[in-house]
């Protein structure tokens, strides 16, 4: 059956789930309209669209700065123009799975910082918790509003060769990238006029207002117009663009640590008319830097005394401090057990099988099969410090093993999962490239809401399985169909 010139030349990777290429060499139904649309465009037109996308990103300053020998260089996060499409059914499944998982993780945080039933009942071993650098004793018995710890999460999902969804990581600290979900959609509107409504793509524009509504509900003062701020590390942070975007979209003040001051266990911001009390802080500064009196004393990004104000309940902090203990990769192993323990349900989304290298038997097994393994640091992020067994040299493997043996608790290993592939537009042709999916879940007093969409990250290098932007990854607009 004739599909299109672009599709005919498309050769999916064998043994990999392809988001577009279905059985019997046919386009999956949900990709059909898009393929029809782009088939009507010449390669020239598509190149122009690609150019337009780049220009829109650059002129709107949707860039991050790479500092090199004292000079800042503006870069854009690579964007592929072909959307990644998720069917309504797939989304319903993912949504249900994330809600379940997030509910359990949140209960876990409440438990681990209060009664610790899950440890006492022997579900999660005590040493895993207490050896985690993100487990903060300062949070012990600190009451957070509505018992919500993880207001914003970005759980990373991947799909195995048969299309099954797996959770790769739970990002529960300060997940970033949501501005790209919003901006990518705005760009797609310009690139493919009228295509979005024709395909029945669900809107993502509600994100800022849902977040704002949730932040508003957390205000400790019952007043008409509480002060909500977004705390950024400042203009040199690579996600600074996202911070300004979110502040602008929600109409809240964007502040840096030096704009805030704590007096008598209350947080104030310094304004031209004097001090103004702050009620809710959506912080994009890591726990460690939040309060130099309690955490890293060298931090210039935080606010001295913030933890005291938080403990007194005079300010709400989003996400709560100390959530990192729940997205530690050694704790990740126990998430399915948490779901069974707290909710008495079977996990909807699967975990990737994970070996803890702290356990000598598992370590031996992993070292034996190291070519089929991915080894990661339990508290790493951004794709740094990983070993991809199938692609590493002999020497890299030996060096990494030595590194692991210094402190095995800090490492886990997972079998190499073959991420699913989606078509990308590359110099006039469609080529399959590996993708993941990060939906953003917002947990407020009225429950968990997930905007239908998310960030699809894509490994633009042929054969690469690493989608992180710091490692040459790009992104796609993510469509969820009605």
């Amino acid at each position, binding site marked *: 059956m004739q599909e299109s010139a672009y599709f005919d030349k498309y050769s999916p990777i064998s043994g990999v789930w392809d988001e577009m290429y279905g059985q019997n060499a046919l386009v999956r139904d949900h990709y059909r309209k898009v393929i029809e649309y782009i088939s009507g465009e010449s390669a020239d037109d598509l190149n122009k669209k690609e150019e337009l996308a780049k220009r829109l990103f650059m002129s709107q300053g949707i860039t991050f700065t790479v500092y090199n020998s004292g000079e800042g260089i503006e870069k854009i996060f690579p964007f592929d123009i072909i959307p990644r499409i998720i069917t309504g059914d797939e989304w319903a499944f993912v949504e249900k799975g994330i809600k379940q998982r997030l509910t359990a993780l949140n209960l876990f945080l409440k438990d681990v910082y209060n009664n610790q039933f899950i440890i006492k009942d022997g579900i999660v071993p005590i040493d895993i918790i207490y050896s985690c650098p993100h487990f903060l004793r300062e949070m012990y018995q600190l009451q957070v509003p509505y018992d919500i710890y993880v207001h914003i999460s970005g759980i990373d999902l991947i799909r195995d060769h048969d299309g099954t969804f797996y959770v790769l990581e739970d990002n529960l600290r300060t997940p970033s990238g949501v501005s790209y979900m919003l901006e990518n959609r705005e760009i797609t509107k310009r690139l493919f006029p009228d295509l979005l409504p024709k395909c029945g793509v669900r809107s993502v524009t509600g994100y800022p207002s849902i977040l704002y509504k949730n932040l508003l509900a957390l205000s400790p003062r019952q007043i008409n117009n509480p002060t909500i701020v977004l705390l950024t590390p400042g203009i040199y942070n690579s996600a600074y663009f996202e911070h*300004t975007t979110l502040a602008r979209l929600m109409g809240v003040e964007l*502040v840096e640590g030096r704009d805030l001051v704590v007096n008598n266990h209350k947080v104030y911001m310094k304004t*031209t008319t004097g001090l103004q009390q702050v009620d809710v802080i959506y912080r994009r500064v890591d726990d460690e830097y939040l309060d130099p009196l309690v955490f890293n004393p060298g931090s210039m990004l935080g606010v001295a005394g913030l933890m005291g104000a938080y403990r007194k309940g005079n300010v709400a902090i989003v996400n709560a401090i100390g959530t990192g203990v729940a997205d530690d990769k050694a704790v990740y192993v126990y998430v399915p057990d948490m779901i069974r323990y707290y909710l008495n349900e079977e996990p909807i989304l699967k975990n990737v099988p994970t070996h803890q290298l702290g356990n000598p038997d598992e370590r031996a097994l992993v070292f034996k099969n190291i070519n089929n393994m991915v080894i990661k640091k339990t508290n790493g992020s951004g794709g740094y410090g990983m070993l991809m067994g199938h692609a590493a040299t002999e020497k890299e493997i030996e060096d990494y093993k030595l590194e692991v043996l210094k402190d095995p608790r800090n490492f886990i290993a997972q079998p190499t999962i073959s991420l699913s592939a989606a078509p990308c537009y590359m110099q006039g042709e469609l080529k399959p490239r590996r993708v993941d999916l990060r939906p953003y879940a917002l947990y407020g007093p009225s429950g968990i809401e997930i905007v239908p969409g998310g960030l699809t990250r894509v490994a633009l290098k042929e054969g690469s399985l690493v989608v992180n932007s710091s490692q040459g990854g790009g992104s796609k607009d993510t469509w969820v169909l009605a």
Partner: protein
Amino acid sequence: MLSRVAASFYWLSRYIERSDGMLRMLKINYASSQDAMQEFTWEPVIRIFAGSGEEETEKLENNSRAVLKYMVIGKDNPNSIVNIITLARENARGVQEHIPKDLWQCLNEYYHTVKETRLERALQREDPIGTLDVLIKQVMLYYGTAEITMERGEGRSFMNIGKYLERAIQSVDILDTKFGSIDDNPDLLTDTSYWKHLLQSLGGYELYLKTYREGFESSNILEQVVLNNDFPRSVIYSVNNIQRYFDRLKDDSNLEDYREMSFQIGRLQSRIKYSSVRTIEEEGLHLFLTQIRKELYGIGNSLNEHYFANS
């Protein structure tokens, strides 16, 4: 408004205004160097705008191309155009959600123009006046965009206070330096091109010709640059505008802070307003300018203390 945001507006504006003054000064001095019979000295320009050490100044002062490089793209000169525009942009970035997108893009473009690698070659090999004009046009674009797009609120008031404070300080510095040189070299007093270039670098040459018919008189120049309220780079015009935009902050201010600063600005305004060329000359120009400069710095310090929370 956040104190940091107000301070960023103020500094953003000071840097832009400084770059404007510098570029004009460089352009006119370069043109003037082409007229010079004897060796042309850049010493006053370097002194006003770079504040470099004597050693550095001596190395540069007679080499026009080297001065241009140092003043426009010199990375080790903290007051070079490239460095102050980088600072201006960083201030703007810190208040990005408070300024119109157009203005941000405009400043961004100015920054990228200054950063372009071609600029060095153009300054060294090609016509420097054309190159400086390209940069001056960027400043003009910025001012036009700001005028049209900026919300008439607190932010703009801080911007304009910064702009006029910087301008007043520049005019005072230029006068002080230029009139100071006469003490060392009285011949300059009758040197037409000396005064012409001074007026041109302040953009006041045409106004002068229209106002005074009797040729270049130092007292007339003094009158125009200090006391003529129709001259947009005069000290009195700048101070009147500082007062004007500060007044608009009244409703957004803490009353006590406002009163204290209002008094300070009013005092300076009266000091200039009720001076004449005669009284200034009696008092001594250098002394007069030194006092005005001190008052202007004082206003900057008070803003820091009362509005920018840097006390």
